[in-house]
């Protein structure tokens, strides 16, 4: 009998202690932060902006689509460091800020170019609720607060739309890349590899974008678009890459997932469009008399997607010639990008890291001068092979029948 009683007591105590209610947080007491943005104010203090989801207005589908109110609310506050901005914002919000669903961090152009991003990430890495796979994006030509306040039409949560937008651009265009906190930190600490962060800019008057009217129109006046890749040196933004230079850089870093490029054929510019389906890039580094020699080899596989000049695409020799042209085009892009980076004196390709891997002892000597001295003077050899695998639902274009 005695045993039984103490057993009961034991269970009661366990129930209260072990089930872990100490840290309890109720759903309706939480404010879900979907995105976080960092900016600088005039005094040089950080401004943290928090995009907080209004759950009632997001619920879509059968429940009536959320209704007339904005799906997010944006709060911002200044502080000496990021934690302080959070403290100031949490006073304005009636609920606890909850970061487990944060999937976007926006860094404004101003922070990136004036203060640098090196010291920003410690909090994100250290805080329990943040995931280090959160995406990082730069703003371009606008403040981070404006960027977070723009409402979007496809995804109700703007942060979601930015991430999806970026993902789409990465998968189809080959000029942007998604980058996470992990990646950024890694390339910041690896000497000989600088981060490349995609930027977004606001098209139109940012103030209008915060109103619901904007997204009720079929052609929203205010939109967010991916716009360039930010190049960093020693943690500071120094340049933007766009178009072919951006793509060339991503080719060389094995980040292109799919893209399309046009080649000149039969003296006609952009006559054949080649669509890359997958590619593989390998970087090998050597040191010859302290002069780095980098060889890049790219192999791309794809299909012919559009033809505007008549040519016999059934003939393997024609295809081989087109493959050669495509390879030349890709090679030119990569060389252009590398040339650009050498002028910037910023190794965004990770060539230094490749040297580190192949010559660990010599790397220690040249490490500090890599970006300014060795990288700009290194020999770069680019080898590209492109393969055409198929030509779609037609072999020859109808244009070849037109000519006869």
């Amino acid at each position: 009998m005695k045993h039984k009683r103490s057993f009961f007591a034991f269970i009661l105590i366990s129930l209260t202690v072990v089930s872990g209610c100490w840290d309890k947080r109720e759903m309706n007491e939480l404010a879900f932060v979907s995105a976080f943005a960092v900016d600088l104010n005039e005094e040089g203090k950080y401004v943290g902006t928090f995009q907080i989801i209004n759950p009632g207005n997001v619920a879509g589908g059968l429940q009536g689509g959320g209704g007339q109110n904005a799906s997010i609310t944006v709060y911002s506050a200044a502080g000496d460091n990021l934690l302080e901005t959070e403290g100031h914002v949490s006073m304005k919000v009636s609920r606890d800020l909850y970061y487990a669903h944060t999937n976007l961090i926006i860094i404004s152009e101003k922070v990136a170019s004036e203060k640098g991003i090196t010291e920003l990430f410690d909090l994100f890495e250290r805080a329990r609720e943040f995931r280090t796979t959160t995406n990082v994006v730069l703003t371009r030509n606008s403040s981070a607060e404006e960027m977070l306040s723009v409402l979007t039409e496809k995804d109700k949560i703007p942060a979601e739309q930015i991430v999806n937008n970026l993902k789409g651009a990465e998968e189809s265009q080959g000029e942007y890349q998604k980058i996470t906190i992990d990646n950024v930190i890694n390339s910041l600490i690896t000497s000989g590899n600088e981060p490349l962060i995609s930027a977004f800019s606001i098209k139109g008057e940012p103030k209008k974008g915060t109103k619901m009217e904007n997204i009720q129109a079929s052609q929203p006046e205010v939109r967010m678009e991916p716009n360039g890749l930010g190049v960093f040196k020693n943690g500071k933004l120094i340049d933007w890459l766009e178009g072919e230079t951006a793509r060339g850089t991503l080719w060389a870093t094995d980040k292109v997932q799919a893209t399309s490029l046009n080649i000149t054929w039969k003296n006609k510019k952009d006559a054949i469009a080649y669509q890359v389906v997958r590619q593989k890039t390998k970087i090998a580094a050597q040191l010859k008399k302290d002069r780095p020699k980098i060889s890049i080899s790219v192999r791309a596989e794809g299909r012919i997607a559009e033809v505007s000049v008549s040519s016999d695409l059934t003939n393997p020799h024609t295809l081989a010639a087109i493959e050669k042209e495509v390879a030349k085009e890709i090679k030119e892009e990569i060389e252009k990008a590398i040339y650009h980076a050498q002028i910037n004196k910023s190794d965004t390709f990770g060539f230094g890291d490749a040297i580190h891997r192949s010559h660990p002892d010599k790397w220690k000597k040249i490490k500090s001068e890599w970006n300014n001295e060795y990288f700009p003077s290194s020999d770069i050899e680019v080898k590209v092979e492109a393969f055409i695998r198929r030509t779609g639902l037609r072999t020859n274009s109808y244009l070849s029948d037109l000519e006869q």
Partner: protein
Amino acid sequence: MKILWIAALLLGLLLSYAVGLNYVLGFNLNKSLAKTMNPFRVMEIAEFIVFLVLIFFLFLNPVRTFFKKEKK
């Protein structure tokens, strides 16, 4: 094991036929070889894993029969 040798022989002959065919079509020898090999060149990770699994199964049976014989 015999089966694998036969398969290897057949594959070798088939591949040399493919190379020869490219050569006859007017590509030089290097290019013909490259053309035969290049479909395997741009492989995704998932693809490569399937490839390895298939090769694994190729050797599974001979190894199994070998140990069965040893037991007897």
